[in-house]
C-alpha cells in the first residue's frame, strides 16, 4: 500500500471568491501581511501497488479535478 496525495487548485485565471474571503478576513482577525489566499482541495488516497502513475493521473484528471477550472498535482508520500 502507498499513500498518494492529490492536490487540486483553482486555475490562476479562475476567480477564487472563497480564497479572497479568507484573505479579507485575516486583517480583521489581526493577521497582517498575507497578500493572497487561494483555496483548493487535498485528497489522500491509500492505494495498493498495482495502481500505477498513469492510473492515478486518470483519477485526478478525469474525476478529482475539473481541468476546465482546476489544476492538479500528484505525489506519493512515504509512510
Amino acid at each position, binding site marked *: 500500500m502507498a499513500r498518494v496525495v492529490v492536490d487540486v487548485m483553482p486555475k490562476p*485565471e*479562475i*476567480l477564487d*471568491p472563497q480564497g479572497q*474571503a479568507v484573505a479579507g478576513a485575516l486583517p480583521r482577525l489581526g493577521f497582517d501581511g498575507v497578500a493572497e489566499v487561494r483555496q483548493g482541495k487535498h485528497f489522500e488516497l491509500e492505494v495498493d501497488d498495482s495502481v500505477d502513475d498513469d492510473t492515478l493521473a486518470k483519477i485526478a484528471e478525469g*474525476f478529482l479535478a*475539473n481541468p*476546465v*477550472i482546476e489544476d492538479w498535482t500528484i505525489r506519493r508520500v512515504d509512510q
Partner: protein
Amino acid sequence: MTARIGVITFPGTLDDGDAARAVRHSGAEAVSLWHADADLHGVDAVVVPGGFSYGDYLRCGAIARFAPAMTSVIDAAGKGMPVLGICNGFQILCEAGLLPGALVRNDKLHFVCRDQWLRVENTTTSWSTRYDSGAEVLIPLKSGEGGYMADKPTLDRLEGDGRVVFRYVGENPNGSRGDIAGIASESGRIVGLMPHPEHAIDALTGPSDDGLGMFYSALDALGAVAA
C-alpha cells in the same frame, strides 16, 4: 402522438417534480427516470433537473455525470436527442462534457434566489424556438454555484457561433463570464441554463409563464403538436 420527455431523479435532486409538471403543462407526457437505471424507457427528450445531486460532493454534478442514466443520456444526446439541463442539471451536462465550460461559486459567495430577467439571444435551439429574438423573460434563479466559466477561446467560440442562448439582464448575479445564463451545444439540441424555467409556467406558482416556451420549443423540435 404525445411526446414523451424524461426527467431524471438523482439522490439530492429537488426540482424533478416541478420539471415533470412543466412537461405535462406543455402537453407532453412526463416520464420519471431513475439515476441508477440505464434504461431511458424510449423517451424523446430528457430534462436534467435542478437540486443538489449527491450533495454537491466533490463538485456540483461531478458524481452525477457517472450515473448509469447519464451514460445513456450522453449516448442518446450524441445521436441528436434534445437535452435540457437546469441549474444542477446544467452543471451535470458541463461535467459530462456535453456542454463546454464549468459553473463555479458565485463571485460574492452568496446563494442567489430571485426572479431574474434574461434575454433570449438564440431562437434556433431545440429549447428556444418559441421565443422572439431579443425577448426578455422573467425566470427564477436560485443557485450558489452559478458563475459560468470557460477559457477565452471557448468563450470566443460560443459568442462567435451564437451559442449563448440566455444572458442575464441588469446586474450580473453570480460573476458569469459575459453575463452568460445559458448555452447550447454546437447542434443546438442540448441546452443548459442556471435559471429555472420549470418554476415559471403559470402565474399562480411563478413570476411569469415565460419558462413554458422552452418546453413548447422542444415539442416543436420533436415534431409533436403543442397545446
